[in-house]
């Protein structure tokens, strides 16, 4: 018997018991919708958390916090480490920064500010994606580059009124408004010795301003000086990294090492392999990918739990399918007997009943999926409003309670189909075992 004819047969049989079939399909649809909606909460929250995490970080960046020595202590990274890191396959750039151990005062005309001062390796910074918004990179030791927001903190020395606004930002009228490129700015560092403060002022030429950080909330007020200027400050204070006093002095092991080292992979796919390799080589690493792995692992467990709970709903619906199919077999026993008497293969009879239970499963899954999408849409639309009204709390932008990816549909429809087919198995087998003579005598 051809599949097309079997399907036609099933449709005719279903038509005979429209209400019973409809109710069974409804139960299956409800089970399927429940499963999808329940799991969609896991998917939605995961998506929201992952998106939020990824928004705040550069995904190809791996932070290297140090190197673990045989005795278990960590040491900061040196040029030797940088060379090794650069040699690792898939690494695009290795940025390294050294921070001055004091906040020098920068002054220009009658404006001044204190700023964090950094020595950066610009070729690698450019490779990693750092860009200038104006000017050029330093070419001589006394040339510097400023962070995009540096000028916002330059304020008039004589100002005595309230300088800052509600957000803690320097008021517009006290800010330095002229162009900084090409100007000379004085860097004043200090040293404290025997309670006596001594200062040294170095004139530096501003040649470039970095691009605004991609994240709106990030502020870059740094001053990027050369290694030569750092050495001058170190010579003046007599301490590593130019610390101003003996209390702030660093251990000698920090000499010729870097404070911040970041590895940039060529692509997101490379990050995991590079992290694993560096971890094996005793480097302490952190990347957003490893954080993602932990988040995803947690959510995978949560989603599996939710799918399992949702499957129970489908299992309950399967009892209805089992009942419907058993009734169908009992009702049609005389017809099955006649079909067997004229030559219907037991396999064909089994296929017809399995097709019928699958038909119920498929229609139920389709209706359930459509209902789940509608419920998911309403949950995403209505739940934030309800929470805001009831708990008076504003939810973060882009928070999604429910998300239904294609994989969830595949999993749910797959579970629904497997359960419905399994619940139709026994009645279908029973149909093949019907005794022809008893069935024809209407004894079943």
């Amino acid at each position, binding site marked *: 018997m*051809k599949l097309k004819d079997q399907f036609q047969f099933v449709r005719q049989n279903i038509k005979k018991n429209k209400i019973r079939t409809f109710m069974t399909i409804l139960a299956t649809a409800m089970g399927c919708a429940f499963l999808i909606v329940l799991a969609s909460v896991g998917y939605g929250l995961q998506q929201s958390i992952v998106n939020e995490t990824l928004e705040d970080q550069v995904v190809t960046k791996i932070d290297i916090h140090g190197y673990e020595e045989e005795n278990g202590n960590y040491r900061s990274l040196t040029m030797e480490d940088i060379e090794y890191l650069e040699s690792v396959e898939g690494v695009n750039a290795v940025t390294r920064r050294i921070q001055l151990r004091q906040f020098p005062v920068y002054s220009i005309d009658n404006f001044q500010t204190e700023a964090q001062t950094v020595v950066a390796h610009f070729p690698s910074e450019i490779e990693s994606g750092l860009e200038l918004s104006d000017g050029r990179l330093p070419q001589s030791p006394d040339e510097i580059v400023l962070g995009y927001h540096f000028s916002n903190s330059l304020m008039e020395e004589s100002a005595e009124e309230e300088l800052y606004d509600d957000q803690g930002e320097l008021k517009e009228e006290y800010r330095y408004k002229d162009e900084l490129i090409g100007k000379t700015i004085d860097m004043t560092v200090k040293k404290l010795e025997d309670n006596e403060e001594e200062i040294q002022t170095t004139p530096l030429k501003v040649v470039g301003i970095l691009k605004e950080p991609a994240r709106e909330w990030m502020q870059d007020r740094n001053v990027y000086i050369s290694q030569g200027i750092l050495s001058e400050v170190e010579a003046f204070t007599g301490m590593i990294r130019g610390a101003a006093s003996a209390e702030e002095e660093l251990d000698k092991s920090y000499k010729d090492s870097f404070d911040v080292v970041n590895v940039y992979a060529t692509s997101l796919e490379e990050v995991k392999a590079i992290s694993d390799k560096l971890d094996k080589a005793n480097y302490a690493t952190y990347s957003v990918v490893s954080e993602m792995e932990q988040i995803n692992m947690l959510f995978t467990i949560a989603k599996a739990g939710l799918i399992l709970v949702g499957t129970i709903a489908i299992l309950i619906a399967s009892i209805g399918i089992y009942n419907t199919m058993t009734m169908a077999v009992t009702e049609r026993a005389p017809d099955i007997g006649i079909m067997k008497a*004229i*030559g219907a293969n037991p396999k064909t009879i089994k296929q017809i009943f399995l097709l019928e239970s699958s038909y119920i499963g498929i229609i139920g899954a389709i209706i359930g999926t459509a209902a789940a999408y509608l419920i998911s849409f309403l949950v995403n639309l209505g739940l934030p409003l309800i929470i805001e009204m009831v708990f008076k709390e504003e939810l973060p932008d882009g928070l999604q309670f429910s998300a239904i990816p294609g994989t969830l549909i595949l999993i749910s429809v797959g579970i629904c189909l497997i359960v419905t087919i399994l619940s139709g198995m026994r009645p279908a087998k029973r149909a093949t075992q019907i005794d022809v003579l008893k069935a*024809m005598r209407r004894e079943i």
Partner: protein
Amino acid sequence: MIHVKKLNHHFILGKKGQKATLPVLKDISFEVDKGEIVTVVGKSGSGKSTLLNLISGFIRPTDGEIWIDNKKVTDFTEAEFADYRLNHVGVIFQNFQLIPSMTAFQNIELALTLKGINKNERNQITMEMLKKVGIAEFQDHYPGELSGGQQQRVSIARALVLKPPIILADEPSGSLDSETEADLLEFIQKLNNEMGITFLIITHDEEVAKIGNRTITINDGRLVEGGAVR
């Protein structure tokens, strides 16, 4: 064509622990040749219908062998029996055994559908068969809307539609009046002459028994006459 060898059959009666056996057929042996019409007669309860059910494969014999076209059907699996019933034998039942929710046309078409024949061919063959049995105008009628004779014609058409070489008929005129019975017997003889179909007809009706080339008599489960081919 049909060769029954030392066939024995008994039914098991009663519940577990209190079972009793009821012998129905005892040492039955006979042969039916190709193109013969063989009638099997005997009193009620003599085992005629059980014999037909055994040859049809609806029940398995306790002992003995049944060979059809040199194939030992008593060794067949369920699937092989299904294939055998679909392709080698047509069965006509006393009470027609039509599916009540199907029209006359659909009942006849069912056998063709089970064989996997496509829709257009099915329509053509079914119409031809409806005309041949003389009930073309009742094709859209359900069994409940047909007379006993018309229902038996649908049943015969269903058994013949796949052109099986053997027809097994159990009391084919049992539910019919004498006039319809005469029509039916004439039709059976016509099919036998024109198509060379072999008939094994179970009956207790003497008129029906007369159309056979040979009559086998069964009494109390034993074959008493007509076992050998003439």
